[in-house]
């Protein structure tokens, strides 16, 4: 039973987390205490120091200085806070350098385009003020714009002059602040060559495919919801704790740390004696055993002794169908039927009559999933019967006893002495060689071999 609901596309503007921080920083009670800051001979009101910013972030978010400096620096780089000293350099200095909050009009989230016209007015103002002494790239941009929007140049010059006249009537402190604000804005919207463009977000993502009403299908599981299996994750993490190199180390050592690849050499798919941790893992769950090629091999040995190896062979053959080339499906399905399901088959598997009937029906139009039901039946048969018995068998117990349990080596006394980092044969090369020998199977994992054959 499926239910349908009509889903409408909402177009909410979510407040940027960055803006939330900026707003919090300016809270009259809990924000940064702003003061007058001295810039040479001028006194700038409503300003703060780099130190103020770092300390506030540390306190507010309970983070260390390194992280606070990092976050603060990002706020400056994105133009929400600008420096008064060295305004061309949008970085946060954790010292007494003065900073101010950018006016929201100039926030990068406002998303109105920083037009050529506005940029032209800005550069013209600068050009007039500096009497023609613009910086290289700004001079270049100015000349380019002059050519491109020449038809409105009178308007540009008029606007520039108006704005300069208005600014002359302001106090020096205000004038400096406004110039810095505008400069920060243009540093972000027209970054100098070589500087990273913080506006870059990658290829455009269209957030809505259609603006029309969209039908959404919901499964009826809503009615059959189960309670959260609370301890599942706890149990799993505890079980695998000592197998997780990041939690518990890695016997004898983590190759990435010590440059010693013994750990990898001991755990290849062709070792004669597996490690203790590895053999232990096979007992955690059936899938763990099957997905390890060596585990599967050892399990096959056991099944052969029990005369039920055909089950695992059947399962592998079904996997081959499911994950193999589309073109070979009909042929493979026929072979599997002949080998495993047909009456009198050499490796006959015991599938219940209902599943057999369904499978035979599906054989008329063989597809990738035609063996799924039979495969699952045999899988669960192995899981419930052969697998538990295997774990109790002498074969498995011997593996555990004989398994290698390397000692975890202490850190090298001279950690700065690097061992030679052995290269290993590229899997593609190995596969090529095997293919030439005619020994390669179709599916992937059994072919990965051990790294480093040379000392």
């Amino acid at each position, binding site marked *: 039973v499926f239910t349908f609901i009509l889903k409408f*596309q909402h177009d*909410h503007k979510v407040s940027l987390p960055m803006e939330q921080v900026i707003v919090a920083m300016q809270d009259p009670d809990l924000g940064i205490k702003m003061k007058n800051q001295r810039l040479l001979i001028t006194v700038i009101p409503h300003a703060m120091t780099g130190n103020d910013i770092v300390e506030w972030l540390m306190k507010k978010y309970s983070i260390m200085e390194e992280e606070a400096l990092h976050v603060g620096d990002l706020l400056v780089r994105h133009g929400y806070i600008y420096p008064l000293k060295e305004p061309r350099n949008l970085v946060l200095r954790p010292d007494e350098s003065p900073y101010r909050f950018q006016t929201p009009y100039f926030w990068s989230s406002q998303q109105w385009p920083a037009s050529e016209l506005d940029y032209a007015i800005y550069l013209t103002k600068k050009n007039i003020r500096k009497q023609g002494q613009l910086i290289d790239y700004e001079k270049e941009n100015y000349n380019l714009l002059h050519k491109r929007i020449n038809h409105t140049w009178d308007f540009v010059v008029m606007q520039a002059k*108006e704005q300069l006249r208005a600014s002359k009537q302001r106090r020096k402190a205000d004038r400096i602040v406004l110039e810095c604000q505008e400069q920060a804005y243009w540093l972000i919207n027209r970054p100098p060559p070589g500087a990273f463009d913080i506006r870059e977000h990658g290829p455009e993502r269209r957030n809505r495919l259609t603006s029309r009403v969209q039908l959404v299908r919901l499964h009826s599981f809503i009615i059959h919801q189960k309670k*959260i299996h609370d301890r599942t994750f706890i149990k799993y993490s505890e079980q695998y704790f000592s197998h997780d190199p990041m939690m518990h180390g890695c016997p004898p050592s983590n190759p990435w740390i010590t440059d010693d690849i013994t750990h*990898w050499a001991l755990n290849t798919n062709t070792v004669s004696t597996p490690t203790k941790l590895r053999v232990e893992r096979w007992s955690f769950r059936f899938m763990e055993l099957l997905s390890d090629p060596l585990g599967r091999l050892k399990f096959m040995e056991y099944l052969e002794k029990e005369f039920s190896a055909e089950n695992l062979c059947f399962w592998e053959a079904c996997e081959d169908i499911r994950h193999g080339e589309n073109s070979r499906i009909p042929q493979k399905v026929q072979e599997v039927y002949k080998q495993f399901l047909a009456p009198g088959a050499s490796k006959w598997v015991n599938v219940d009559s209902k599943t057999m009937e369904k499978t035979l029906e599906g054989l008329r139009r063989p597809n990738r999933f035609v063996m799924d039901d039979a495969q699952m039946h045999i899988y669960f048969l192995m899981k419930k019967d052969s697998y538990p018995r295997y774990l109790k068998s002498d074969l498995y117990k011997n593996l555990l006893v004989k398994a290698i349990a390397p000692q975890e080596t202490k850190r090298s006394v001279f950690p700065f002495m690097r061992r030679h980092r052995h290269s290993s044969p*590229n899997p593609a090369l190995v596969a090529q060689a095997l293919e030439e020998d005619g020994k390669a199977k179709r599916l*992937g994992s059994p072919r990965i071999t051990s790294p480093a054959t040379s000392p």
Partner: protein
Amino acid sequence: MLRGSSAVAIDNERNKHPSDVIAAASAARARRSGRVGLATASRSTSDPHPAEMATHELHPNDTLTTLKMESENLKAKLEEERAKLHDVELHQVAEKIEALGQFVMKTRRTLKGHGNKVLCMDWCKDKRRIVSSSQDGKVIVWDAFTTNKEHAVTMPCTWVMACAYAPSGCAVACGGLDNKCSVYPLSLDKNENLAAKKKSVAMHTNYLSACSFTNSDMQILTSSGDGTCALWDVESGQLLQSFHGHGADVLCLDLAPSETGNTFVSGGCDKKANVWDMRSGQCIQSFETHESDINSVRYYPSGDAFASGSDDATCRLYDLRADREVAIYSKESIIFGASSVDFSLSGRLLFGGYNDYTINVWDVLKGNRVSILFGHENRVSTLRVSPDGTAFCSGSWDHTLRVSEEEGI
């Protein structure tokens, strides 16, 4: 900008004290937000069950407003139904567990060679090789252990956002703005041009965002900016199954490590994470709790849950059997989106690569952050733990890849 207005008017606007402007904007935003009403909508016990309500036929007289109201009510009811079964959050259950100690993270290898932003990477099953792709079209195969480059291919497009290593280690798949996924068999003949043997497998109608081989080299699963995912036969390039249901660009996917191996999860710009049945093409579960694009999804090692990373600066954990979100990993000081997530081998740790250049590591059970790694000089765009859990690799817009490990001390 206000064109044609007087210069003085513009200046006045820009001169407003920042806090005044912020206050006004917040008020306006609160008014605009229509969602405030949802939670407080009255629900009487005589209201029909969501399942019944929804199967009512559409009448020609139903206006857009009434339909919208109905959809909102339905959604609220669904949440209510889900909430009824809500017992506790994961971190509450994990209260009694010992907290993790101090962790130290160290970068052990830095792979330099890409000339532009690294966008994606994947590990080879041999636990030491990786494939990476970048904005300039380059796809490189490295032995990360020795830092040697072993293969390089230049794609005919820029922004190669997806790449994957074949299970056999004999091929790599990649794609991006070309809307395709191509497979390159890895040849060891130095003189042979890898591009010559290239096989075009997937064809979408918008950019390729992610790709992954299934259990063999013969099938590839893709996700695309065209809003769909698809399963392809590598040999013939045939489309085996397509998956429709996302309302916007699909950005990521991950195959389930389950016994039956028939499902995968995808995340998209519609803020939804969908779980799909690969046989039928149906969406069998859907989760929508993120507040922005979902950039990355990754299954918990047991397959019972998956984690997601989003532009809303949070990572979340979704329990598949309980059918809901069970944990949020966030911190007020983390204000940039998470681009990529992956679990440590035991699933106890969740690694998140973020757009603020950092990597944060979370205690999956208790929900707190246990470590932070600085080092990249630009966005972390991709992050994967190695197949045996000994290390993790991060790729960044700073053109480098770094292999780092995490140790409890």
